[in-house]
């Protein structure tokens, strides 16, 4: 029983990380049809710079952690908005070029991060409570899992609220359905593109700071390794569906934890098999839209 609870909560925590990356991927694909392979770099740069700032403030205090998260989100947002503005904007509807540019950017930035921060992991110091455990139903759960889950839920609620209750949200939802008609109503949909990139980048940057708490360190590859699973989550959830991404994040991460524990470390394989199964049964993913806007 205690193992079950531990695996479940750890799965939820990992799912929270997947969601923070996948939410941006899904929004960006939904509105613009862009597969953003550079998304992991937004996460990594948010994590590195977030912790740089945090370290200079004071190591291991809550206040430094909050600063790291805010800075990480801000840096992620800026990096993403700049990527959209300077690179992607010129390539709308040119999908091959988009893939080449974002893959290239991902590879180049990883090399850049290694140049700046080295190839060894940079260990991070977070508040002591996060490294301690809390007992639930006999399972000793690392406290950082609770922080991850709470913040992912907060991000989900914030994005959903933004989409539902703001004018930009309305433009984005309409643009996901029919981008052309949005422009034909006199709306500069490209501004919504930048906003969506910034939101996705902010979630990823925050995810970067949280991922380094989960793993205990930052490295130049932290983003690219999470990105692989985030893509799988996005496809399983249905490209363009935020709710689908949330559900799939949890399902994939929990499945991964259970398979790792009970089936001798076959978590990654189980995830790929789940992806294949979903694609066979529901090619558009769990909550995928009927019509693609790409």
């Amino acid at each position, binding site marked *: 029983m205690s193992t079950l609870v531990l695996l479940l909560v750890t799965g939820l925590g990992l799912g929270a990380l997947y969601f923070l990356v996948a939410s941006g991927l899904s929004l960006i694909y939904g509105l613009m049809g862009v597969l953003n392979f550079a998304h992991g770099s937004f996460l990594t740069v948010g994590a590195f710079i977030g912790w740089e700032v945090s370290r200079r403030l004071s190591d291991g205090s809550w206040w430094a952690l909050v600063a790291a998260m805010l800075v990480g989100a801000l840096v992620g947002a800026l990096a993403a908005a700049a990527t959209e503005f300077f690179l992607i904007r010129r390539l709308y509807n040119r999908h091959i070029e988009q893939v080449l540019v974002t893959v290239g950017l991902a590879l180049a930035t990883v090399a850049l991060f290694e140049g700046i921060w080295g190839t060894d992991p940079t260990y991070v110091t977070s508040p002591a409570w996060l490294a301690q455990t809390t007992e639930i139903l006999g399972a000793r759960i690392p406290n950082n899992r609770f922080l991850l889950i709470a913040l992912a839920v907060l991000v989900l609620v914030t994005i959903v609220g933004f989409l539902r209750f703001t004018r930009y949200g309305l433009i984005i939802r309409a643009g996901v359905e029919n981008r052309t008609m949005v422009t*034909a*109503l006199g709306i500069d949909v490209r501004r919504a593109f930048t906003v969506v990139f910034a939101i996705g980048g902010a979630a990823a940057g925050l995810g970067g700071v949280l991922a380094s708490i989960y793993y205990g360190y930052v490295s130049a590859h932290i983003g690219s390794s999470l990105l692989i699973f985030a893509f799988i989550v996005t496809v399983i959830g249905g490209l363009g569906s935020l709710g689908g991404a949330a559900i799939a994040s949890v399902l994939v991460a929990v499945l991964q934890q259970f398979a790792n524990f009970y089936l001798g470390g076959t978590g990654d394989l189980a995830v790929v098999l789940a992806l294949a199964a979903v694609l066979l049964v529901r090619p558009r993913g769990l909550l995928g839209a009927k019509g693609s806007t790409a």
Partner: protein
Amino acid sequence: MTDPIRTESPRTESIRTEPARTEPILRVRNLYGRIAGQQVVEDVSFDVPGTGVTALLGRNGVGKTSTIRSILGLIERTGEVTFAGSRVDRLPTHRIVQRGVGYVPEDREVFAKLTVTENLRLAERDAHPNRALVEALFPDLVQRRAQLAGTLSGGQQQMVSLARALLNTNRLLLVDEPTKGLSPKIVGEVTEALLAAAATVPILLVEQNLQVIRRLADRVVVLSGGRVVFTGDAADLLDDPELIQRYLGVHSGADPADTTTDAAVPA
């Protein structure tokens, strides 16, 4: 290559007392449009005067929709488009629309997953949109404001699409087949709504239903093979069964979309 003068066909000279010999609101010259590398609009030139309804006619697939989409920059185009005295053929679509164009696309293109209210809010460009006007024209939409537009009937969706264009104070409406696939009753309602709108804003109208054309059109521009083959007073075309047959491929009194009575008088 057609000389632009050719579109000012001899019939244009026969125009009786035209109210709008002033500056046209829209001037199209040598417009070419391409979709996926294929030429769908070829050297089209015509004017839309500053008042009344100009009908853009022609057989199916002749390029009417593509002409409108070229004007709006929704497809790749070259040529000269002058709107309200300034060139707009290099502007992106949203800039052209912001200058005061309302667009009612073929097949309505409402946002299916947004509510009626959200569809209308999205379309509001003016600081003080004419909500009251739209609610008076389409009371159905008021009742269904919280309904997803995708679950509306075709007629109701067309009302949403029209309402999006009528909410703002525009200087030109581009309306593409507003009565397509609608029941006779709704066709009548849509026609009357457009007639009311035409009192305040010039309209470029694509329409297949001859009765509706008779009711609304002041002037006609006929396309064939992607080019303009006739420009003139609506009556010149509509009173000539032979021309109707030649240009539109229908018999004047027997348009299949028409009800049997063809008693409507030219507006």
